[in-house]
Each structure stands twice: as structure tokens, then as C-alpha cells.
């Protein structure tokens, strides 16, 4: 209070007070009036996005999924799949499909991130569904636990995706793809949308916190060096048997031939 008592009789005190009062009033007013204008701008941006998305949809997706995403004999309905599903399927290059094989496979995405976002925004307008997620939103590095994630992965994922996330076979040519080298947001979106043969892991089955742990374990397995030498694909004893019958026994027999060759 020493500062105020010392300067309150200062000749600039009154003008300063007026300036402070006026600017507070002015900034408050401008802030209060500006916000509706901003949201209006966002809304118009969003509607442009949806319009763009619809345009892409009509060009690239509607021939199979129908003009309004209602589906057809060769493709499922997209009503209610949500933006998360679009972000996963299009963002990992699975959609549009390269051919009508058993399962859409991962490949280089056809659409840019902006186009994917537009498509997601459009499909989300068809009916409510899970919203898409950004990599920043899922804080797996901070909130996940590798050991818990490993347990969860072995309990829920390994029966299809293999113990080390290398993928595995399903019936009739379908397969669970490898989860190595997949963006965290796509892993998360796959869990909440259940693409293709995969079941949906709702937040009741696996809590969001647990989902982060699973992602953390997958990322840890991805970056884990091959501790025992060449990994042989991390697919179990089949490749080990293959190596022993080719290189192992091949070398040994070749040496046996060499050891006895001199006597001929």
C-alpha cells in the first residue's frame, strides 16, 4: 500500500486512472462482442469443410458406399460410423480399397490430412458416432504404463495380432495386421471403432487410460531392440525351424562333405 499512498496525490494519478478504466471497459467490450463473430467464422469454416468432404465423398466413395453413405451390397453403410472410423480407414490408406479382396490392407493414404479431415467431418454429419482423435490428444507417453499395457495386450489383442503385435491369420483369407509402425491415434481409433474383423473395445471393456497403456506397450515393443540377435520376424518357432533346417544343418552337412572329400 506504500506505493498507492505515496503516489495518489501525483499529478498523473487522475489521468492514469481514467486510462485504465477506459481500456478495461474497451477491452472487455471488444472481447465480449468479438467472440460471437469468431464462432460464426468457425461455423462457416466447418460448413465449408463438410461441403468439401461431401464433394470428395461423392467423387471417391459414393460409387460403393452410396450417394448418401447408405451402403450397398458391396460396401457397408457409413451412417453412424463417426469421424474416428473415417480417420482410421482413410488415414491408414485402407480406404479407398485397391481391390475387392477379403480385407482392405494398409497402404500409403490416397488423401491428404486435410482431405481426410473433410471426409471425416462430412461422414460425422450423417449420424452421431465416435469423433476422430489427434495424436496430441492421446497422452500415452505420460499416462500409459508399459507393463499394464503388455498384460492388456496379451489378454485382448495377442490372440489375433500375435504376442509381439506382428499380426496373424484369421479365417478365409482375413487377417489381423501388424500393429508395428501405426500412428498412436490410429491404434486408438481402431480400438473404439472396430474396423473390419476387429471387435469394438468400448471404454467399458478397456478404459481410455488402459487404451493409452496398450499404445505405450506397442510403442515399446516397436522400439525394442532384438535382444537375442536376428529377430526372425518375432513369429515364434516356425522361422527358427526353417533356419535350423537350412542354414544350420546345411552348414553342418556341407562341412561333413568337406571333411570326407579328401579321401576320394
Amino acid at each position, binding site marked *: 500500500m506504500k506505493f498507492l499512498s505515496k503516489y495518489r496525490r501525483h499529478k498523473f494519478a487522475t489521468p492514469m486512472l481514467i486510462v485504465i478504466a477506459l481500456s478495461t471497459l474497451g477491452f472487455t467490450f471488444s472481447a465480449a462482442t468479438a467472440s460471437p463473430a469468431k464462432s460464426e467464422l468457425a461455423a462457416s469454416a466447418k460448413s465449408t469443410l463438410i461441403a468439401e468432404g461431401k464433394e470428395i465423398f461423392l467423387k471417391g466413395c459414393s460409387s460403393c458406399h452410396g450417394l448418401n453413405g447408405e451402403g450397398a451390397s458391396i460396401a457397408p453403410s457409413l451412417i453412424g460410423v463417426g469421424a474416428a472410423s473415417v480417420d482410421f480407414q482413410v488415414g491408414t490408406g485402407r480406404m479407398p480399397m485397391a481391390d475387392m479382396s477379403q480385407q482392405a490392407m494398409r497402404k500409403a493414404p490416397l488423401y491428404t490430412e486435410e482431405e481426410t479431415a473433410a471426409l471425416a467431418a462430412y461422414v460425422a454429419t450423417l449420424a452421431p458416432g465416435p469423433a476422430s482423435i489427434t495424436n496430441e490428444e492421446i497422452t500415452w507417453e505420460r499416462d500409459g504404463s508399459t507393463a499394464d499395457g503388455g498384460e492388456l495386450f496379451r489378454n485382448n489383442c495377442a490372440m489375433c495380432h500375435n504376442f509381439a503385435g506382428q499380426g496373424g491369420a484369421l479365417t478365409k483369407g482375413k*487377417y489381423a495386421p501388424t500393429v508395428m509402425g501405426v500412428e498412436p491415434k490410429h491404434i486408438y481409433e481402431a480400438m473404439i471403432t472396430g474396423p473390419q474383423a476387429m471387435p469394438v473395445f468400448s471404454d467399458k471393456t478397456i478404459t481410455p487410460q488402459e487404451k493409452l497403456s496398450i499404445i505405450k506397450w506397442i510403442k515399446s515393443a516397436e522400439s525394442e531392440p532384438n535382444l537375442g540377435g536376428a529377430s526372425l520376424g518375432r513369429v515364434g518357432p516356425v522361422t527358427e525351424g526353417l533356419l535350423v533346417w537350412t542354414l544350420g544343418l546345411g552348414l553342418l552337412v556341407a562341412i561333413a562333405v568337406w571333411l570326407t572329400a579328401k579321401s576320394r
Partner: protein
Amino acid sequence: MSARERVAGTVANYVDERTGSAKWLKKNLNKVFPDHWSFMLGEIALYSFVILLLSGTFLTFWFDPSMEHVVYKGSYQPLKDVEMSAAYASALNISFDVRGGLLMRQIHHWAALIFMASIVVHLLRVFFTGAFRKPREFNWILGIGLLTLGIVEGFLGYSLPDDLLSGTGVRIAHAIIQAIPVVGTYLSFFAFGGAFPSELFIPRIYVVHILLIPGIMLALITVHLMLVWYQKHTQYPGPGRTEKNVVGYPLMPVYMAKAGGFFFIVFGITALLGATASINPIWLYGPYTPAQVSAGSQPDWYMGWLDGLVRMAPPWETYAFGYTISWNILIPGLIIPGIIFTGMALYPFIESWITGDKREHHILDRPRNVPNRTALGAMSLTFMIVALINGGNDLIATHFDLSINQIMWGTRIGIILLPPLAFVITKRICLSLQRADRELVLHGRETGRLVMLPHGEFVEVHEELTPEKKWLLTQHEQAAPIELELVDQAGVRNPKTFRAKLQARFSAANAEAVAKPTAQDLKQLENEHH
């Protein structure tokens, strides 16, 4: 005499005066062994067994065969604070916190795979060359026993760490035991000391794995080798080689050096694999809990054919008198392996019954000269390979973009159609090779040199084979089939008609051959030419 020789002589004399070893050593060090690369396949098995004993002993220093629940605190971070059995934790400890532990684990496991693979190729060599014939039938049976024990020993060995993959295997073994009609349930309770998963199984199989089976195998290997020593080694046909001699090199120094060196080569290659290629990465599998199973769970290769048979079995079950009989496990898991191993063990006796040949044989057969046996071997091998392929059907499906259902149906049909096809094709190839041999002996090698005779005729020059080569191609005997006597000279009907008919029939099939050239054939040919 140099000082060194004098010292060596004194020592040798000292030992000889007390043990009388000089005479025995002189006799045995001069023992002759024939030289051929295929005779060293059994040696690979022997040496990998030694490596298994050494590396296995190292692993027992740290392995704790206990199912006690512990919380992992070791240095492998992704499993930190995970609950697991003490067995799994100690296997992780060996892998990450014992110096050289992971290398030793990997050497032990690679040596096990090499051991089983070399037993199989050794067995194939013995089978296809007819080395199992009299007097070596017992040694053949010992070999089948070692193969069977090796499969069990390997399975128990990789089950010990109590990881997710091996636990799945134990679960399947449990199911196979349960599939035995009537007593299955009791047997499974007896083996596991209760319901699955059991706290007692790992400690029990540990004792069986490190003491019982290796002890029996060591004894069997000793007898196996003593019989080879006593009966002497077989040899391939060649000039100067008879049923009464062995042509080769003496044990000392030639075989001492070769065999000793080969041990270190086998050890070296096993260590190379152990140091550079990951095997059974248990830390990736995670600890076993019955609730979990991984995609692509496979056994080691020597169990793979069994897994393949179980995988292709149709879901047959019958329910009778209050019991369920799971044919889908019983047939592929117990009945077919039982038939295969019994058939293998009895094969020497079956063959000698068919041929009626009760003589001793020390000269090996060339596979082409025994078409039926060779074809039978190819047939069995085809069966095993088809089964083995189905054991890895899920990996084949993902890696070659195939449907697992198609592979399963392919192998279901293939396992019935392909073995007989392999039999027929192999037999035809053998007969064709016999025909080629006959042509070679009679007409010599085609040189590709064309000569124009004075009257304008073109002929190709055939180079006559050396006498040694001719002998090699004609030394085998071609026995006539056993004649069926339905009625004897007195007009009495043969009381063993069915057996005799069967024998005559097999014998006729067995004796099918392209007649080897005789001296008469050659003479006749010469007369035609001149």
C-alpha cells in the same frame, strides 16, 4: 630316445602295468571306419547332445523350477512389476541378468533343434541305405527310442520357462492326455497333480527333463555306439569292399582328428546361431496365464507335424455311455503317431519277412536298387511334410496372402493323395535309374563325339566305363520273389494260405526291378557289334 619320449614311455608303461590297457588300446585305436559324409550325420547328433548337457548344466545353476507367484523386479523394463511364476522370472533372469545367460539359453535351444534335425537325417540315411538290416535291427529300435525321447525331452525343455507360448503347448498336451478314452481324465490328474493349470507340473517336468530322460538317453546312446563298435560300421559298395571286411581309415589318428575337429565345428556353428539369431524370446511371449493365447502359437519343428495333424482334424466327437470321445484329438494326437512310430520300429522285421532274407548285411544298398523301400520312405516323408506345412498354416496364410481354410483343405486332401503319389513316382524314378545304370554298363557313357565312318555312317562314340564303375553298378543282388505254394508236393493245402499269399504279393512288388546286365548280356552285345 629323447627325454620327452622317455617320460611318455615311462608313463605309458606305468599305466599299462596296472591296467593292461596297451593291448586293448592297440586293438581299438586301429579300428577302421569307412569314410563318407553321410556317416557323420549321427555324429552331429552325438555332439549336439554333448553341447546340450554342457549348456543345460549351466542353465540349471540359475533356473528355479517353481510355480511360486513373484513380482518381476529384474532389468527387462516392459515386464517390470508384472506378476509371474518364479520359473518364468528366473528364465528372464538368466536371459538378462546372468552374464552369458542369454547366449547359453540360445545355444541350448539351437543345439536342441540341431540335435533333432540331425537325428532325422541320420535316420533317413540309415533307412534309405538299408543299414537297419540284420544284424542291426536292435540298433534301429534304439534309434527310434532316442528319436521319441528326444521329441519328449525337447517339448518338456521348452515348456519349463512357463511363458505364454509354452504354456499353450502344455495346455494342448493336457488336452491330448485327456483324449485317451476312459483313463484320460485320471491320467491328466495324475500327471498334473490336479486340475490345469497346476502348481506341480513345472517342478515335475524339470526333474524329468534334467535327470530322467537325459539319463535314459545317455544310456541308450552308449549302447547305440557300443553296438556300432561291436558290429562294425556298414560301408557303401565299392571295389574291394565285401560283407566280411571294412575299408576305411583307422581311428587313430585319422578319425580321432576328424571326429574331434567335427565336434568343435558343431559347437562353433551352434554358438554362431546362439550368438546371432534369436530363439524362443520368452520375454516377448510374456508369462503364462490360461486366459491368454497368442496368434501363431506353434511348437518347435519336431512337434510341428503333430500340431499340423491336430489342426487339420475335422471336429469329430462321439458321446456314448456318459463319456465323450474326442476323435479330433485322439486320432491325430495319439493314434496316428502311435501307428507311425510302431511301424518305424517294426520296419526291419517287416522287410525281412517280405524278402525272406535272413542273412547279415554290411554293404549298404543304393536306394534305387531297392525301389519299394525307397518309395515307402518318400511316402512317409511326404506325409510328414504335408502335416508339418499345416502346422504352420497361419504363418503361411499371412506371409503368402492365402486363406487358412484353403491351406487346411489343401493339406487335408493332400495328406491322403500325395503320399501314395510320392510312392508311385519314387518307385518309377528308381526303376528308371536302374534302367539308366543298365544302359551305362552295356553301352558306356555317351561322349557327344560324332565320328563319320569311311562308308559315310555317323556314329556316336561311347566311352566304356571303368571296371570299378561297372562293378559298382552291377554288384547288387536281385532276389527273385518268394513263390507261393498253395499246395505242397503231397497235395496238402498250405495251412498258412492267407499269410503266404500276402507275403508272396508283397514280395512280388518288392522284387520288381530292371534286370541288371549279366556277363552274358555283355557277350551277346559284343557279338552283335563284331
